[in-house]
Structure formats: C-alpha cells, structure tokens
C-alpha cells in the first residue's frame, strides 16, 4: 500500500480523534448521569465519575411512568412496544425481501421488469416521503394504535430486496444447475442453498433493520394516540420538553440509556456474523 506521509497521518489522526470525542464522550456522560441521584445532577459541575444510585434509578425508571407529570406509558411497556415493532419490521422485511429477491433473480415471469421497477420505486420513495397517504390508508384500514399498523407500512420497502438480489447474483449459475441435477426443486434450492448462503447477510441486515425499526419516531408518533402503544424513542422528545419544568436528569439519562441498550445488545450478539456480512469480500 501507499507509504506513510507525516502530514496525511496527522490529519487522519485528528479526524479520528475528533470522531471519538463527538461519539464516545456523550455516552459516558449519559452513563454517569444515570448513576447519580436527581439532586447531584443539578449541581455544577456535572459529575464525570459514576455515582452509586444506578440500580435505584433503574428501578424507578423501569417501573414508574418515566418523568413525573408527563403522560407517557411506563418505561417497561414502551420498551416492549419498541421491541415488538423493531422485531416485526426486521423479521418481516427480511422474509419479504428474501422471497422477492428470489423471484426476481431466479424466475422468468411476464412483466418482470415492470414489477422490478415497482419495487424499485419503494426504494426511491421510502415511507417518510409518502407518509401522509400511507397514514390515510392505515387509518382507513383501522390499524391505528396497533402493532400491525406500526410495522406493516415500514416493512414494505425494497432496500433489503436489492441487497439480497446483489447477493443472489454473486451465486454462480452452476450452483443452481448442479442442484437441479441433484434433484433440488425451486423451494428446496431456496431453503437448502440461498438461505444458508445468505446467513451472514441476513444477520447484518437484521442488525441494521432492528436499529432502524427501534429508532422510528415520526411514524409511531402519527399512528399511536393510545399511551399503551407508545414506543421508547417517542418519550425522549417529551422528556426533554418536560425537563424544562422538572429537570429530573437522572431519570432522563437512565431512560435514554435503556433506549440505547437493546440495539447495543443486538449488535453485540450478532457482532461476529454482522461484521462478516458487512466486510466479507466476494470470493
């Protein structure tokens, strides 16, 4: 590779160190904040070392209704709602994408190109862009305030279809032909070959989609009016607003720590497959 050049090196380091400060430091502040009591958090300077109130705060946050005086659901219920939404979105998207990529790559059917472009359009116009008409449809179908309404419209998108299409295209035709000679029909090929061969891609996609689903804000805000269907990310804006009146920073910090936790857990458990799926160069 290219030799070292001192000036370029310096710039590289600078950029990277700045990146760390912007990303890592606030997370530390958040963790520290979640481990002190409410009074300490109002004193200046803000503490930079963890306190001893972590589990006390955890209990208070999880079982209480978040901040006093706000009208959100209890945090444990919001976590559950978020989890249900994130899981339905990620699993639903992966299942549909796998099937449609399979259809596009391996089947010849009339108007194939037409359908291909229809799928393509959803990629160009994600749900946020057409959020109003989508809201209308969901409302008309009576799916407001339901898990189905929360997840279905976000499932119908094509990003993942394209990823699987790309993946399937790299599978040599001879593999399919060899499988056919070995007596494997289309569905057998799908389950015996495509799914196992896409393993790392599925894992990587699951992580990305779970985080995507977890972080949805605008859509849940639109379609949930019932407190019991609120998601955790929805509470954050409300808490910041509430903080202006009752600055219970220890609870706010703990809530946002809890909101961060599931994505991190998913990343950590899937990490090996995820990294493989992202990094793996095609052989």
């Amino acid at each position: 590779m290219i030799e070292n050049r001192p000036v370029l090196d310096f710039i590289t380091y600078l950029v990277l160190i700045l990146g760390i400060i912007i990303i890592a430091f606030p997370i530390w502040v958040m963790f520290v904040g979640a481990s002190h009591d409410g009074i300490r958090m109002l004193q200046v300077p803000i503490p930079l070392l963890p306190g001893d109130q972590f589990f006390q705060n955890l209990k208070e946050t999880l079982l209480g209704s978040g901040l006093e005086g706000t009208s959100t659901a209890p945090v444990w219920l919001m976590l559950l709602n978020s989890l249900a939404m994130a899981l339905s979105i990620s699993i639903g998207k992966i299942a549909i994408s796998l099937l449609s990529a399979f259809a596009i790559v391996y089947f010849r059917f009339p108007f194939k190109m037409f359908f291909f472009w229809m799928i393509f359009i959803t990629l160009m116009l994600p749900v946020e862009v057409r959020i109003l008409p989508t809201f209308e449809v969901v409302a008309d179908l009576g799916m407001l305030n339901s898990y189905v309404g929360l997840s279905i419209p976000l499932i119908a998108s094509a990003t993942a279809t394209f990823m699987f299409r790309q993946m399937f295209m790299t599978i040599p035709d001879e593999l399919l032909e060899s499988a056919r000679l070995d007596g494997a029909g289309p569905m057998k090929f799908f389950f015996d070959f495509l799914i196992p061969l896409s393993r790392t891609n599925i894992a990587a996609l699951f992580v990305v989609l779970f985080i995507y689903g977890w972080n949805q804000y605008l859509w849940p805000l639109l379609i949930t009016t019932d407190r019991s269907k609120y998601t955790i990310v929805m509470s954050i804006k409300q808490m910041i607003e509430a903080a202006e009146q009752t600055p219970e920073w220890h609870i706010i910090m703990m809530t946002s720590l809890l909101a961060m936790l599931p994505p991190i857990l998913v990343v950590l458990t899937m990490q090996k497959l995820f990294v493989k799926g992202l990094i793996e160069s095609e052989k």
Partner: protein
Amino acid sequence: MANVSLKNVKKVYPGNVTAIKGVSLDIADGEFVVLVGPSGCGKSTLLRMIAGLEKIDDGEVFIANQVVNEKEPSERDIAMVFQNYALYPHMSVYNNMAYGLKNRKVPKEKIDQLVKEAAKTLELEGLLERKPKALSGGQRQRVAMGRAIVREPKLFLFDEPLSNLDAQLRAQMRVDIRKLQRQLRVTSIFVTHDQIEAMTVGDRLAVLNNGELEQIGTPMEVYSKPASEFVASFIGSPRINLVSGEVKAGSLHVDGFELPGFSQISDQPVKVGIRPEDFVLESTAKMSLQIDLVEELGSDELLYCVSPTGLDYRIRRPGGSGHKVGENITVSVISEKLHLFSSQSGKRLN
C-alpha cells in the same frame, strides 16, 4: 450406462442467432467422446442441452434410446462436472456427495456406503468433513468427480473440468479421468477447448466450429486427415502451416513450385496445409528458407522461417540441432503429407 444420440439438434437464441445449427451425433454405450472447438463454437451449449439445462429448440436428444427433450435435468439420470466445480460451499465434502442421493430418497446406510466407496476411489477419505474452501484446486476437482460418480448415473458430462488446474496437475488428471472412465465404463462426454486434452482423453473426437460439427473420428484420424481447413489449424500444436496455392491441370502450384500428382482434384484455388514436423531437411531439397527465430523447447525446436517469396513457415525439428537465426536451410515435403483444402468451402480435397 446408455448410448446417446443427437438427431439434428438446434439451438436458436433470441434475435435469431442460431448457436447450434443442426448437430447429429451417435455415442455408443460406454464410449468416451470429446467435444472440442474454440470458445463460442457452441460446445458447452450442446452439452448443456444434453444435460437439460438449455432448451432444445429443434431436433431430438436420446439417452438410452428414449427422447429426453422434455425431461427435467434430474430425471435424465446424468451427472455433470462443471468448469468451476460448482461445489456447494456451505456443505462438507461428505454432504456435497450425499446431497443428490438424499434428494433421491436413498436410505441413509446406502448413502454412507456409496459416498465412502467413491471417496476411496478418489482418495478423498481424509477430507470428508472439510468444507470446499479448505481444499486445494486438485482436491476440489476430485470432489466434483466424486459427486458425479457416487450417483452411478447413465451418463457423465464434463464441462472443461481441468481448465482451472496447473499444467502438471492437468496432465495427471487427464490420465486419471481416462483410467476412471475405462474402469467404470460409463458413457461420457467431455467438453474442452484445449486440443491436447481433446486428443488424449477420449475415444473419439468431435470438432465443432460455429455451431456445426466439422469432423468426428479418433484422435489420429482427425490429426492425420483433417476434414477441413478449420480442423487442420485447430488440432495440432505447433499450428499447421497454411499457404495459398492453386491446382491447375493436375498439378499443384504453391509458393513458386509446381508439384504433379493431383489429377483427382479439379482446377481451383486451394489452401495447402503442411504440419511443422512434416518438413524434411535435406541439402539437396528445392525449397530454400531463412531462419527468422528459433524456439528451443528442449526435446524439440521450432524454426520460424521465411521463404524467398516472403511466406512464413513453422518447422519442427528434434532439439539441440544448433540452428541459428539468419541461417539458410533447404527443406522438402513429400506430396502425401500435404493437406489440400478448397479455398471456397474449406473442405478437404485429397
């Protein structure tokens, strides 16, 4: 084990491109036939039509005297070895070999027995638990062979199975495949673009060009009596010398010489083919050539020569003769060793 028969088989691609222009071919039970030709000649397409991986647009393919045009590939009872081996990357060697048998609902113990036998034949016993990516090129090739033989099919199809191996391994596998086929006696069709492989691996050789069968015969028939200018220039290394000439009143006029004794050929312009090894070096010969380049191949050497009229000739001689660039030599060729082809059709005349 079965005979295979193609009857005027055609393949037309969209846009009316005829890839296979009516090929008829009979392969006897247990025979080993090689399909050879340059890339794009349709040899792989023909093989894939026999396998059922390409639709047959016209004509009929018989396997064991049954028309198989409409049969699924898996119902034709054939096994195929692909150029890139097409091993299943997520399965162990054992499962690669067993997968086809499992789909045929062969009982587990029987599968186990068949796979182990095949592994023994191909010396793969220590590798059964490995994944394909942990194997060397030669081992992968043998796994692909194993996957083919374990099913005990009626017909083996080989689609350039040796082209990803290095030269020494290729020479070795060539001999191994030949011996294995002799031992199993399964009818086999082998596609290659390599003329040395084509000459050595099979019982008969079918030379394809441009979707048409140019010649079929034993390797020596094809080499010593090429049916067309194309076959003459494709088979044989170093390449045959091809010079333009003319037959006039029973005599061949070529490069300034007149050779009598071609009275059976009507007057016409011809192409004259001379194999590089058919030149005889004699001090009294008529033809005088100047050496332009000498390639020493060890056991042989190849002299690139120019005639006084500016034509190029390749002459093959035993190695170590000490010929130098710039030297003049005199050579002759006996008339029986000349190959004459029509300038129009390219077909053999003598």
